[in-house]
């Protein structure tokens, strides 16, 4: 029972990342009908937004403190960050410590802008072209984005810690009346899971309860009719592309403390997210979210030792295996609508 619970919890954080990326992919596919191979790169850019913010906050200037002496007896050089000098030492230190959560505020406008530029500048010209061309051009774009990041930030992973308040782990076992230290779960992963639920909830309620969302949903169902009613659907779809980019970016920002960002993390997640989208059903938003969490949990179950003893290597391939089985037996995925991309 306890290992069972532990594996579910372990699967949740990866599942959250899959779900968020797959949600964005599906939003883009459902609205614009474009298969975006650069979505993983957007996730990576989000993570590097957090890195950039933490670097900006750590910018400092040097002053010579005549009171203190270093070990040679010269006046010591003291580094003070600008943030600390502006907000006072205590508030400044707090801001620097909270760089990753603050990265959310920093990333949203950047990701919206990137999404907007990408759609208007590139994707727009590919609506009428075959899916293969869309895959190819976004694949090229993914390479370019990845290389740009590599040029500016180097090839090594950049550790970006979570705020010190969230270091350490939470003892779930005690909460359920078990012995301490049976089920422990890092605080930040809990935060990540909650955060992803909030983002997913926000996206769904935006689509469900606002006029804008209603128009977008109508456009997804029948683009032409909505256009005939005199609504500029293209403009709204462009905004949805920006929102999808922002969702991927936010997933990246919050993922940095779990895994130090490097330039190819996007590609690693992209392949899996595509598989998630396919399992969930191309074009189905709830399907993408559900499949994201399910596959994340399944992956963590497959990495349990006794399962690995029976089927060695299963943890490496379980997701692909599920995807292949789903595609062959139920091509529209778990919750896909009939007729979408069913060939």
């Amino acid at each position, binding site marked *: 029972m306890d290992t069972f619970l532990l594996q579910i919890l372990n699967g949740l954080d990866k599942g959250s990342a899959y779900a968020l990326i797959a949600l964005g992919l599906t939003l883009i596919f459902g609205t614009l009908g474009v298969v975006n191979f650069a979505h993983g790169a957007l996730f990576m850019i989000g993570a590097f937004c957090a890195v950039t913010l933490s670097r900006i906050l750590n910018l400092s200037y040097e002053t010579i403190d005549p009171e203190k002496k270093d070990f040679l007896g010269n006046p010591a050089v003291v580094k003070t960050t600008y943030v600390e000098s502006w907000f006072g030492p205590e508030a400044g230190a707090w801001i620097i410590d909270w760089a990753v959560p603050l990265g959310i505020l920093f990333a949203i406008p950047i990701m919206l802008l990137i999404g907007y530029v990408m759609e208007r500048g590139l994707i727009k010209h590919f609506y009428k072209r075959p899916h293969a061309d869309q895959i190819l*051009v976004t694949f090229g774009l993914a390479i370019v984005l990845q290389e740009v990041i590599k040029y500016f930030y180097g090839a090594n992973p950049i550790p970006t810690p979570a705020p010190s308040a969230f270091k350490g782990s939470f003892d779930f076992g005690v909460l359920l009346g078990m012995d301490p230290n049976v089920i422990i779960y890092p605080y930040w992963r809990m935060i990540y899971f909650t955060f992803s639920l909030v983002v997913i909830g926000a996206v769904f309620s935006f689509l469900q309860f606002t006029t804008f969302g209603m128009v977008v949903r109508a456009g997804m169902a029948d683009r032409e009719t909505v256009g005939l009613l005199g609504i500029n659907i293209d403009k709204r779809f462009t905004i949805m592309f920006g929102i999808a980019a922002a969702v991927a970016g936010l997933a990246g920002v919050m993922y940095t403390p779990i895994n130090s960002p490097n330039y190819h993390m996007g590609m690693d997640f992209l392949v899996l997210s595509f598989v998630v989208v396919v399992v969930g059903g191309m074009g189905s938003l709830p399907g993408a979210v559900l499949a994201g969490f399910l596959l994340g949990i399944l992956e963590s179950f497959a990495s349990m030792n006794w399962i690995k003893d029976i089927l060695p290597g299963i943890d490496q391939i379980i997701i692909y295996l599920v995807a292949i089985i789903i595609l062959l037996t139920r091509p529209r995925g778990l919750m896909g609508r009939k007729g979408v991309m069913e060939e």
Partner: protein
Amino acid sequence: MLGLNQKDTKFLLIVVALTLLTPFLTQPFAESSGLAQFNAGYPDLMQRFAIYGIFAIGFNILFGLTGYLSFGHAAFLGVGSYSAVWMMKLLTTNVIPGIILAIVVSGLFALLIGYVSLRRSGIYFSILTLALAQMSFNLAYSVLTPITNGETGLQLTLNDPRILGVTATPDGSIPATHLFGLEMKSSAQWEVFGHLFTFNVGYYFCAVMAIIAFYLSLRIFRSPFGMMLRAVKTNQTRMSYTGLNARPYTLAAFVISGMYAGLAGGLLASMDPLAGAERMQWTASGEVVIMTILGGAGTLMGPVLGAGFIKYFENIFSKINDGVLHGWFAFLPDGLEDFVVFLIHPFVGKGWHLTLGLLFMLVVTFLPGGLMEGGNRISRWYKNRRNKGTDTDEGTPHAPKSTPHVAE
């Protein structure tokens, strides 16, 4: 000749000549001149031209003819490499058995993967092949370590049995790969007028293989089977209405292109008996897609051109560093020179992939037919301009098209 009409025979002969003369053609600059760094006439690179040419020709049989975009072709290359190295470990370092095994094993593997993934088409097919290839990559890294030697990669050792060959040479080193005694790495050099030409056994072996591969693909393109594959790309629904089942044709194309990839993998292992799992990664599959598209999918020469283009510039670009750039722009005033170097710097050296990505995006956007279409456009424009003065009746827009126009 060889079952080809006159035009194709001429075409084939040109290709043969170009392939055999590669050591001259890739060495246009004298050793002492400043442009010697643009020479590409050394064995390793020439072998790569031929090998990746084969890989791309094979990929083109699937993607160019049937339109099925596979994102997992590197898996077959990797499987081919592993089988060839195993043959060299167990049997002999003669390359022939290794290559035969590579082709057979990758063909069988392609049959398996093709049987599963060809049940779907379009983007689903791409994702299925991607998933299957990524699965094989993960397996090669983890569970299959006894066969693939995991992260280290599979290589020859001094305790391999090598039943038909020798375990170790008399001086106690690992025997080199050879073709009935001709060592792959041995080469002859010829210096004339300051040019240094290298004739490498391995390259000529790859070149002969590439010519055979090209000839076979030419025959496939001209055959009724090739016509069927084009029909699959053009309109599969209409094809099935006429009572034809497309699956056997696409599966055959998939297996053939898998065997081409296996041959390329076997050749890679023959040139350098080493096989690693990173050859199977999906970025490697992406590379062959880029080669084919860049050159021109669906054309005979396009993939070979694309493979040569990418391998050549990959090599040249990674050699250009800031010092070289400063040398080139030394004629500019100082400030401007630094600025120009600063602008170009991100795109050369380690930035080759950035340039490649940008180039690929541009080609997909503006020149979907790749380099071949670019060449055709230029020659048409040139012809039109020349014809304008003399004969206005034969303007191309009104001339009947040689191939029937079909919607994609």
